[in-house]
């Protein structure tokens, strides 16, 4: 049992995170200060929600590269609508509205992929430019600095504060929110009929159909959920940055994919866990936001995302090939 846990992807990731953390701590002592560590948590929130959505789609054997465009469109549209209505109520309504818009965009992806039977990569590449282009052409290109009051107040809502030092360490509410949603999704994937259907569909569509799984419905739910979670990421990004900027979150779909793949999910579907994904998010955010501390310009950040993505894909593939060869699987049949 313990051996199995130790050999799992999650255990490996924990070791890598600890090793990288140790390296950072040795090179730059301020890495270990609580404000920086809590700051990493805060910067991980948006990527975390995007990655959870990406995980849903990957488990069912698809891919959704439009999550970043969905996030920014949901955030901007929700903000514009609320400002238009001169809304001053609780922030929750803004979140729900953004999630609804995101879910709607997710539904567009779902319909195109399941009803027209088109490859999900090309469809979502199409909707990626479609959502972003549509937003910037028809909704607006302006950075909105004056948000509904409760939305900008959210940026300073801390879960708790630890006083001390030059700067108090504050953990933002959104980190707690991310953890709560991750736990919920993790439970649903592991313990509900719907969750098991997701893995079944991604692992073997034919077998899932024969088991009586409503394959199309499961696929649709994955894309819609990815949209909802992207909407969540978008509105939180607007609130945390205290501005609705239609040019943010560009290219973050790559980080999300890297995080999910690092966490053990495969683009071929049927694999991946919430814990692994969250560890992947933590590793990427940690490296991304600590590079400056050790004197590496942030311009190199993308390079690490690429390396992580390739490592996440490559290492298990190499290991699998070695196992196959050891078992004497005929080369030609592979």
């Amino acid at each position, binding site marked *: 049992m313990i051996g199995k846990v130790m050999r799992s992807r999650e255990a490996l990731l924990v070791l890598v995170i600890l090793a990288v953390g140790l390296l950072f701590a040795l090179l730059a002592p301020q890495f270990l200060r609580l404000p920086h560590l809590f700051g990493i948590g805060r910067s991980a929130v948006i990527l975390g929600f995007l990655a959870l959505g990406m995980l849903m789609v990957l488990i069912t*054997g*698809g*891919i959704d*590269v439009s999550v970043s465009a969905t996030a920014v469109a949901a955030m901007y549209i929700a903000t514009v609508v609320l400002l238009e209505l001169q809304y001053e109520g609780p922030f929750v309504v803004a979140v729900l509205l953004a999630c609804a818009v995101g879910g709607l965009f997710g539904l567009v992806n779902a319909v*195109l992929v399941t009803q*027209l*039977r*088109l*490859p999900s*990569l*090309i*469809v979502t*590449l*199409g*909707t*990626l*430019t*479609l*959502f*972003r*282009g*549509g*937003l*910037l*052409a*028809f909704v607006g*290109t302006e950075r909105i600095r004056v948000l509904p009051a409760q939305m900008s107040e959210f940026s300073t809502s801390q879960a708790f504060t630890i006083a001390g030092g030059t700067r108090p360490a504050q953990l933002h509410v959104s980190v707690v929110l991310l953890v709560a949603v991750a736990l919920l999704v993790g439970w649903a994937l592991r313990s509900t009929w719907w969750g098991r259907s997701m893995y079944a569909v*991604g692992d*073997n*569509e*034919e077998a899932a159909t024969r088991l009586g799984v409503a394959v199309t419905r499961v696929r649709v739910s994955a894309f819609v959920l990815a949209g909802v979670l992207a909407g969540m990421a978008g509105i939180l990004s607007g609130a945390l940055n205290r501005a609705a900027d239609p040019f943010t979150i560009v290219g973050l779909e*790559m980080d999300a*994919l*890297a995080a999910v*793949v690092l966490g053990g999910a495969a*683009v*071929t*579907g049927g694999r991946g866990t919430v814990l692994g994904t969250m560890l992947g998010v933590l590793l990427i955010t940690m490296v991304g936001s600590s590079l400056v501390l050790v004197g590496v*310009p942030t*311009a*190199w*950040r*993308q*390079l*690490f*995302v*690429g*390396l992580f*993505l*390739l490592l996440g*894909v*490559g290492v298990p*593939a*190499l290991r699998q*090939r070695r196992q196959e060869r050891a078992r004497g699987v005929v080369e*030609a*049949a*592979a």
Partner: protein
Amino acid sequence: MNARLGGKYYPLALAGLVVVLFVVLTILAPNTYPTLRNIASMASQMAPIGLLAVCVCLTFLIGGIDLSIVAVANAGAIAAAMTATALAGSLGDTTASLVGVVACLTVGAVAGTINGMLVSRLRVHPIPITLGTLALFTGISTGITGGSTQYGTGTLGFLGRGTLIGVPVAFLTLVGIVVALHYLTVRTRFGFRMYSVGASSRVSRYARLHVERVQVRTYVLSGLIASTAGLIMFASTNAANVSFGSSFLIQAILVAVLSGVNPYGGRGLVVAVLLAVAAMQQVQTGINLALGRWSGANFAAEFAWGVLLIAVLGLNTRAQQRKRKTVPRQPSPQQEASA
């Protein structure tokens, strides 16, 4: 042979589309559209996207995809600019630019080799691999330049803006490369193997074809052509930046899909890219003419590429499904991955 053509009449329909678009736009803008200057300008703008679309087509043919092409093009352009600027003092502008060209193509070949080796050795689907190398190449370019624009010595202008008997050199380059690749894919043993690997890599393996070798060579070819596209982009503006051509990937895939090459491999003709890119360029110019003064024109064009990509892909897939006259079935991701 019919299977190779991907529908006997498809190229004819595509040529019809090009003519119809030309006629419609001529009627809508009789004074500005059918002028020699506009046509020459459209022809030279077709070159980078046409070349990038060729990369997509070649990788589609073997059942793969190369998403790193724009990153490779920009990396090549940056290499050309930096090499030319660095050597201009010691070698003179012209020689330095030629060394820059070599540097650019080398970057393309190396990038293609990395893609090919990863795809064939790891036997993972090329989507995550080439997305990873997309981030990797962009990361390296961003890191080296710090995101700033690199300028060359300006001696390559003829490649980007020059004309030969009135025809833009960039367009001639595109036509030359497409025709050569058409010959390569349709008339040579290597081309036959590409179609074979694309139709079924498993059967190709049983037939003792070196599937890995075909994959590596195709991705190297894709990298080389992508860097040529980058060279033309650099030559026409004398500037290179990691963020150039942000909508080129989707446009290249749109052109590739429009040219009738099957994304699942084994079907289509590379030469149809010429017709498809002519159609797309006319739509682009049409959008520019109609919305030119509106600040959101670029974004509206991006919106249009997204809609068109999905529409064209949907129509193509429908047509193929109807032709098979069976229950529509796409290969499942598992089959895609093992292909």
